[in-house]
């Protein structure tokens, strides 16, 4: 696993998330399900819990956005990026943005929302990219789906090491 150099971490184990808007590519229930699965994947292997909230500021705010969306990391060409997430922290910290220009699905066509969300939540919890193609945190989309069924041990260790403690670094 790869922890980012500043090793930012959440100072509490009970985290909240909120879906700010929904992609028109999928029924809302499918988006809800994809996010729930992505968070459950990480809560199953760590002391963290995730609660969905419907208003106000959550630790992890999730949105589908177009192009330049005001965070200095615009989507769009030429880079073929699908989504990005911010490391743990206040404000924009932990937030996940999906490129609405992409076609999101709940199956194997185009870009499976669950696969991408699972990877991005790893960043929200403080993990960086891993150069092992067998890791969920490898940066290419094609590799995410290959590792999700048997959640890889490296990222599991990473998020356990990076868990909140009484004496955060």
């Amino acid at each position, binding site marked *: 696993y790869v922890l*980012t*150099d*500043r090793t930012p971490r959440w100072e509490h184990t009970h985290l909240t998330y909120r879906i700010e808007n929904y992609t028109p590519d999928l029924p809302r229930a499918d988006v809800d399900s994809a996010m729930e699965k992505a968070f459950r994947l990480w809560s199953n292997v760590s002391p963290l819990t995730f609660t969905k909230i419907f208003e106000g500021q959550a630790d992890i705010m999730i949105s589908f956005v177009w192009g330049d969306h005001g965070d200095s*990391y615009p*989507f769009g060409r*030429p*880079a*073929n*990026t*699908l*989504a*990005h*997430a911010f490391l743990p922290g206040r404000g924009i910290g932990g937030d996940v943005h999906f*490129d609405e220009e*992409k076609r999101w699905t709940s199956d194997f066509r185009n*870009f499976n929302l669950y696969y*991408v969300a699972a*990877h*991005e939540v790893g*960043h929200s919890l403080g993990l*960086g*990219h891993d*150069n092992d*193609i067998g890791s969920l945190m490898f*940066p*290419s*989309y*094609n590799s995410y789906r290959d590792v999700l069924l048997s959640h890889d041990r490296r990222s599991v260790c990473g998020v356990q090491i990076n868990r909140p403690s009484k004496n955060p670094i």
Partner: protein
Amino acid sequence: TPGAQDQDVRTVQNYLQKFYDLKMGTSKSGRQTNSSLVTEKLKQMQEFFGLKVTGKIDADTLNVMKQPRCGVPDVAQ
């Protein structure tokens, strides 16, 4: 790299700027950067993805750069 198309060079520069913190210099003639710095960043990228580390643009490297991916940089900033 001999034989590399302009489009390929732009792809590489954009990719390294976005994901490997390649800084582009500016001159009167427009965007320029130190070629050795590009080579260094290219090697870093090739090593990360398990490619043959040459520091040169090749088909495998371009293929990886064109794959859809997460927008978070591969190197810590």
